[in-house]
């Protein structure tokens, strides 16, 4: 049954996904628009097709981690009894966010607030990092300030899962650097043999659009859970593919309404790269994100793209934008801890501490 609190969580999830769609669409389509292979309309069209596909077919991997992998009950039987006592449906094993659904709202909002603040100051924070921090903060608050019954069921922040996620965040740019380095070597050597410029241009165009579509697919598979992962935590009995479709539609709305300027800006920045460079960086980033989706790890597509560009820069013997990169790792490290603190404080306040 759809309750008022579930509607509120769905609304917050829609807002968060809308944000993700409007800000991160450029990671997939910036190259194609910047190099004038696609118009913005065609780019959003392709993005919509592949985001929705990635979200519905593979969104469940990361959604599972965010909804019940990080914060869960140690004693599932006590949790089921607790849910039954509170007249909550127990069609699926309840999570701490099912018992305290306001924490799901607060955690998603904390992540969104941090992302909006960073966007305002032009800092590249990741939604995935923000959300993992926020979930952990909310989980800690439930465990500390929850009622005696909740504490008896044993709210537990899974430290090993959190550590795995931290490792995957460090490995994302490194993996993208490696893949981009490899693809650039292979692509530049293979394409050197083609002498006809028209054929070469056509191959570049096809490769750029194909990798953009693949990037959009992995973007859907990975990022859909950042918006609606906590909706599933609040009601684990929901139909996961339908929830993923809901998140993907919100992302499409964000991309169609607000991404044009972002795509143009990023496109202009990226087109200073040669086509083979842009293609290799994008493919390296997409493959890295896809690998982590299969491992159910919530990673950042933006960080993968940055890694891809650095990887290609390494082949050429230059570090891209070394000075600008200076602030980026600091934000990457700070993000989960800041959202954890915001979410912990807000959850404690809403729980009446």
């Amino acid at each position, binding site marked *: 049954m759809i309750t008022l609190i579930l509607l509120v969580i769905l609304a917050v999830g829609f807002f968060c996904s809308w944000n993700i769609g409007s800000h991160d669409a450029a990671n997939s389509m910036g190259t194609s628009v910047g190099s004038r292979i696609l118009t913005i*309309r*065609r780019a*959003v*069209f392709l993005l*919509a*097709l592949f985001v*929705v*596909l990635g979200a*519905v077919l593979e969104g469940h991997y990361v959604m599972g981690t965010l909804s019940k992998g990080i914060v869960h009950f140690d004693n599932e039987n006590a949790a089921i009894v607790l849910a039954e006592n509170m007249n909550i449906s127990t069609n699926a094993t309840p999570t701490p966010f099912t018992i305290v659904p306001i924490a799901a709202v607060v955690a998603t909002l904390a992540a969104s607030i941090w992302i909006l603040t960073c966007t305002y100051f032009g800092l590249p924070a990741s939604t995935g990092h923000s959300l993992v921090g926020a979930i952990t903060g909310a989980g800690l608050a439930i465990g500390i300030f929850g009622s005696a019954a909740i504490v008896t069921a044993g709210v537990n922040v899974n430290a090993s899962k959190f550590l795995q996620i931290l490792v995957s965040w460090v490995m994302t740019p490194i993996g993208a650097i490696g893949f981009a380095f490899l693809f650039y070597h292979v692509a530049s050597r293979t394409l050197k043999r083609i002498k006809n410029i028209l054929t070469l241009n056509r191959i570049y165009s096809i490769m750029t659009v194909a990798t953009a579509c693949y990037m959009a697919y992995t973007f859907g598979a990975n990022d859909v859970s950042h918006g609606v992962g906590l909706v599933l935590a609040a009601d684990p009995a929901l*139909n996961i*593919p*339908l929830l*993923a*479709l*809901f998140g*993907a*539609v919100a992302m*499409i*709305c964000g991309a*169609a*309404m607000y991404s044009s300027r972002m795509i143009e800006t990023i496109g202009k920045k990226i087109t200073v790269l040669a086509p083979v460079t842009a293609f290799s960086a994008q493919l390296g980033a997409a493959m890295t994100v896809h690998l982590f989706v299969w491992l159910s790890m919530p990673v950042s597509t933006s960080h993968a793209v940055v890694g891809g560009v650095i990887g290609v820069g390494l082949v050429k013997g230059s570090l891209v934008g070394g000075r600008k990169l200076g602030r980026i790792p600091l934000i990457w490290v700070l993000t989960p801890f800041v959202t954890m603190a915001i979410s912990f404080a807000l959850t404690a306040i809403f729980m009446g501490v």
Partner: protein
Amino acid sequence: MESWGFIFIAIAILGLFIGWIFNNALVGVVLIWVGMIAVEVLSFVKKNRERSHKTKNEY
């Protein structure tokens, strides 16, 4: 936002709604794909027709 943005959003929401009615996300995905591709094909045909009209008038 331009008119195509509204059309894409309308198709996406319609796909979600129908997927929800059928309780099957893949139905929604197929509808979104079919709807968006149909809109793109129609707009392509319309543009081509306008272009050929212009060329005829120039002659």
